[in-house]
């Protein structure tokens, strides 16, 4: 079986390169009076909005061979349901991977939203089910439920979603959700059930994932940790008599040579203000088990970007460059592809890749890196040049 590769949609603005911190593309450009301005260039009001830029990225990703993209949802981002609906008509293949916390939606409404989106896109909607801890505080979102209970709620949500999807009638009496004789109406009920990617590193997360997920989704971690994590998930699902696939979300910097790739990273690193580095050392990551696993990999002292090199081509400073996860892959096209192949050999069935700026890099990675990935068989995809 071949590997599915997704791209990412940057939902909270975008600098023009890894070196730059701002100005941000689109209307995230920070203006003088702390008001943000629109436009790609100088921040003048040009009548475009950020969705115009995101549309360009989605098209670039589908044209250069990605399945679609993950559309992250955090307190400071635009929302993936909205982005997906807006971009439904002007994309052809692009699959919309929507992260959302089940606790925020009535499952019957979520089912209708999803089925409508499937109808609007010809079946291109899928989920990244998340269960909190991704933001500073669940109560910012208006959610008072505690960490492990939230996974119970996620499980209930997916029970109901599945129960009503094909039309029901379905009744359920859970702690968080109840329905009585529920079911999606015809013709919405004829749509395909969305593929489910599932993230969360805690035990509670794995329990819920093993019941409902098609793909377990992890950030990149050191290879031995990834191997152990995938093994744990698979063991649980084997118990339930199910099969689960595994996937990795990772940022990359790929260039024609190693030297150019590291130059990009080191220039970006030099532009990080000292306060940010200090804060980075001090910060904690809330109640997310996954995020804390990543933070455990911080270097003790920081003198140069090299302190963040964990193993060949694996760099742990990505969250400093653009926020988000810490580990990423830096290197020549060949070496980045080789690292991806190592992850495939560890059991990875799908990737969500990203690089800044997402527009130009979608073409680069699609054209230069993906063709070099050998995949499960280990055989080169490249035809011999006569």
């Amino acid at each position, binding site marked *: 079986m071949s590997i599915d590769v997704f791209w990412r949609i940057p939902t909270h603005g975008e600098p023009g390169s890894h070196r730059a911190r701002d100005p941000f593309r689109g209307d995230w450009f920070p203006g003088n009076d702390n008001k943000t301005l629109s436009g790609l260039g100088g921040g003048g009001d040009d009548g475009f909005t950020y969705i115009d830029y995101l549309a360009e990225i989605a098209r670039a990703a589908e044209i250069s061979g990605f399945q679609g993209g993950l559309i992250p949802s955090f307190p400071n981002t635009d929302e993936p349901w909205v982005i997906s609906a807006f971009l*439904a008509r002007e994309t052809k293949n692009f699959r919309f991977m929507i992260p959302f916390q089940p606790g925020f939606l009535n499952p019957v409404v979520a089912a209708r939203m999803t089925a409508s989106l499937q109808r*609007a896109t010809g079946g291109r909607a899928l989920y990244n089910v998340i269960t909190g801890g991704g933001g500073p505080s669940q109560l910012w979102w208006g959610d008072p439920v505690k960490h492990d209970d939230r996974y119970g709620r996620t499980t209930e949500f997916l029970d109901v979603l599945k129960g009503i999807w094909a039309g029901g009638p379905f009744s359920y009496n859970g702690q968080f959700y109840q329905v009585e004789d529920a079911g999606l109406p015809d013709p919405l009920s004829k749509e395909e059930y969305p593929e489910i990617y599932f993230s969360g590193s805690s035990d509670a997360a794995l329990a819920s994932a093993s019941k409902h997920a098609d793909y377990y989704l992890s950030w990149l971690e050191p290879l031995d940790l990834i191997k152990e994590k995938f093994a744990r998930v698979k063991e649980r699902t084997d118990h339930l008599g199910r099969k689960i696939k595994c996937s990795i979300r990772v940022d990359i910097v790929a260039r024609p040579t190693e030297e150019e790739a590291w130059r990009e990273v080191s220039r970006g690193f030099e532009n990080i203000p000292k306060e940010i580095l200090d804060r980075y050392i001090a910060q904690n990551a809330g109640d997310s088990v996954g995020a804390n696993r990543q933070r455990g990999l911080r270097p003790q002292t920081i003198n140069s970007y090299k302190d963040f090199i964990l193993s060949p081509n694996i760099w742990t400073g990505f969250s400093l460059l653009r926020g988000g996860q810490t580990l990423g892959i830096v290197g020549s096209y060949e070496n980045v592809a080789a690292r991806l192949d190592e992850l495939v050999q560890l059991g990875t069935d799908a990737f969500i890749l990203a690089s800044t700026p997402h527009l130009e890099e979608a073409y680069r990675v699609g054209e230069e890196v993906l063709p070099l990935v050998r995949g499960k068989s280990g055989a080169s995809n490249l035809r011999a040049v006569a």
Partner: protein
Amino acid sequence: MANQFYWQLPTSGDARYGNATKQRRGEASDPHYPVFGNGITDPRRNAFSYFDYIHQVTKAADLAGFQGVFIPDNPDGEEPWIVAGYVGRSTQRLKLLTQFDASRGSAVYAAKNAVSFQRYTGGRFAWHITEGSSDEHTRKQLGDFVPKADILARIDEFITVAKGVLTTFPFNFVGRFFEVQDGGFQGPLSDREVPSIYLGGNSAEQLELSAKHADVHVLDAASHEAIAQQIAAYHKLAQGRAVAFSLRIDVLARETREEALEDATRFLTQTGATIPADDSALLWPGFAEQHTGAKASLIGSYDEVAAALAAYAHVGVTQFVLAAVPHFEEAYRVGTHVLPLVRQLTNPAHKQAA
């Protein structure tokens, strides 16, 4: 201010005939029952979906001079926010008035989605919040177990929280249904337009809630006298509060009254609806309610229907949510033949182009 006209999008099926359950436009046909029989090859396969048709209706409303589209929430139909995003991308002017009830989930999450809508549409997103079904079992089918007595209180909190996080940082709230700590949006997500809030109902409690939160109060189709009374009652209760009134009413307008009556009769035959039809009346209660949700339809010549709409404007209605089956052709008809007459009648200075 000039009157605003909204055209309703058919979120749960539409076709040439009154009864759209058999064949929805844009829907892939059942391979076992090909529409063209065996005589003609059908090139469409799965190239289209019902959303392509909804999109056409939206463009029709835009071209025909409506100011907005109303996207009703029918539990048997498409989800209104997905429809709004889908049509929002390819329109520049139209307001997107979406209907939903407060059982949809977190008010913060709803507000956060609204922020993206407003950012991408320049503030064209609006909320018509309803109470959902009055039938307890229907509500339980839709995952809502909140008792009927609490429905208005939940709407009240939903709007309070949504407005709170949209306009204030940090926003704190502890209620019976929602709780927020240090909420609110920052950076480019902050200071976005609060969606215009539409609420309806005639009971004392409903009026009180509307007077507290609504920008627009929604009236169901009724006689001119009844509408005038409802508006007067509202003003009395909501002293001094500047609220606009929107009337949700269907229209079946034709060149002549005879044609309108003929088509009305045909529609009733096709839908199998039985209503006490009075040929001399302009307002037919229950006419297409099964299909559009509106409580009544105006039926008559272009002049008659336009005059009736103008008369509603005269008693204080400034927004109209109109619908007719099939929604595509009728958007052009009403936009071309009826709206210019209404504009002329309500604003004599507005001369029709010669």
